[in-house]
């Protein structure tokens, strides 16, 4: 635990020391801000952040791998991986530490977006429930996607490759439900089942309920299991260095 927090603290600080964090956060805020403004200034607009949440998931598609790409790739490039893996620290602690740091950074990035609901409270009276669950959804989803990016970063010493691989996996996870549109009307039962499985596997379908104020244990389990899977695979990926 001490090691985990030690690594998390070190990573967290080095995020704020690098320009990447500020640029990525600024990009994130520009895009979310733009879409938020668009969604609430059109006629008959809802005083809600639902559009903000659903836009955010597409922005996170490239924001998340941009945040995580350096985590392991840079260690390999700097050669510090050799120091880290020969220090008396478990692989799990290294992975968890880096994950916690990136989670902290994600939260730091989401924090300024509280300005948007604040505007809603200022100019109207939004329903607090969906705002809370929407943020819960974004954090859960972001937390799960971070592990995907972390895994991608553990595969290579090239940050660009880590970014591309991470964004690629996330893209698949985001749009895997789109296969539902492939079969025509009235597909046979097994195709419907297959489509249902793909739809369940999609990250987007699990954000729908959360973004409108309904917390379903299924969605939480999906995200938590996805995060656990990403962390598990990252640990295995590090571990293979020890015997490959």
């Amino acid at each position: 635990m001490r090691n985990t927090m030690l690594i998390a603290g070190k990573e967290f600080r080095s995020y704020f020391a690098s320009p990447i964090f500020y640029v990525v956060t600024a990009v994130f805020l520009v895009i979310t801000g733009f879409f938020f403004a668009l969604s609430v200034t059109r006629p008959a607009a809802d005083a809600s952040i639902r559009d903000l949440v659903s836009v955010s998931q597409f922005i996170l598609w490239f924001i998340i791998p941009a945040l995580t790409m350096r985590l392991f790739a840079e260690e390999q490039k700097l050669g510090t991986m050799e120091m880290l893996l020969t220090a008396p620290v478990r692989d799990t602690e290294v992975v968890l530490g880096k994950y916690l740091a990136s989670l902290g950074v994600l939260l730091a990035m989401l924090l300024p977006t509280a300005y948007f609901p604040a505007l809603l409270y200022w100019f109207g009276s939004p329903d607090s429930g969906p705002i809370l669950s929407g943020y819960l959804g974004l954090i859960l989803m972001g937390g799960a996607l971070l592990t995907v990016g972390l895994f991608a970063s553990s595969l290579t010493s090239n940050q660009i490759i880590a970014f591309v691989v991470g964004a690629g996996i996330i893209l698949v996870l985001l749009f895997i439900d789109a296969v539902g549109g492939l079969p025509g009307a009235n597909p046979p039962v097994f195709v419907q089942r297959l489509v249902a499985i793909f739809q369940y596997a999609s990250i987007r379908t699990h954000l729908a309920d959360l973004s409108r104020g309904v917390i379903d244990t299924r969605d939480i389990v999906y995200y938590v299991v996805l995060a656990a899977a990403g962390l598990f695979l990252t640990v295995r990926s590090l571990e293979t260095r020890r015997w490959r």
Partner: protein
Amino acid sequence: MIEAKGLTKHYGDFIAIEDVTFKAEKGEVLGFLGPNGAGKTTTMRILTGYIPATSGDAKVAGYDILTQSLEARQHLGYLPETVPLYTDMTVREYLRFVGKLHGLANGKVEKRSGQVIDICRLGDYRDTTIGKLSKGFRQRVGIAQAIIHEPDVLILDEPTIGIDPRQVVETRGLIKSLGGEHTVILSTHILPEVSMVCGRVIIINEGRVVAMDRPENLSNRLGGASRIVMDVRGPDREIVQTISKVEGVKAVHGENLGGRQRYTVEFRPGKDLREELARLVVNRGWGLLALEAQGLSLEEIFLKLTTREEL
């Protein structure tokens, strides 16, 4: 402190090291000498648990590096070939981080990072960002991070590479002073460095240990003894007598291979006896099946090493 038994590492078909076996006692400074690509780094990475051996075992401070990896790593300080530095941290931040990573308590970390900064003469740069340090100072930070937790075993991969001559001398002095308390393994491809710093040397070439001795003995051996291995078909006793009489031969060991004998002939160097021995055997009418010189490779290695000395 360190015990390696039959370490072998294959990368696919490429054999990086084969059957590397050695021991290092407490307080010893052991040099790994060999040309580039000889397998020094591979051996050190295996010892630190960074990569696993294909076969063979090793123990560090009594702990198996595979099955008790974490315990073994607790007793280990390691300076890899590429110095592992976070370029965005200051020297002190970095040393604190590494110290804590090795389990030093907060108060102890402060004390030790102060000490290693003094030992490695980094005092003027303690709050400098590592990215701005010159290569020599980075190397010192690398050594500092390896010793901050006072490990029993110190593994240094090419600690003097790429730094300027004055610093090389300092660094060597530093390493020498570390022996005694720590068991040090250091790798180098520079021959004089070994004799200056190490109590014992392992020479490694193309993945194999070719010699292991004290530096002065090695020098003797270089000028001392060489070997010829020859397979001969004929009367054993007669052959041994004949060969022993040859000028320069020190000892002959025979071994029956069934139908022929294998003789290992040790002789004083300075003269190549291969031609003479071959002529002798053939003239006597015995069957000369094979003849091979050993130990010349050692000479060749030394040749390679000495020519690359940068001093």
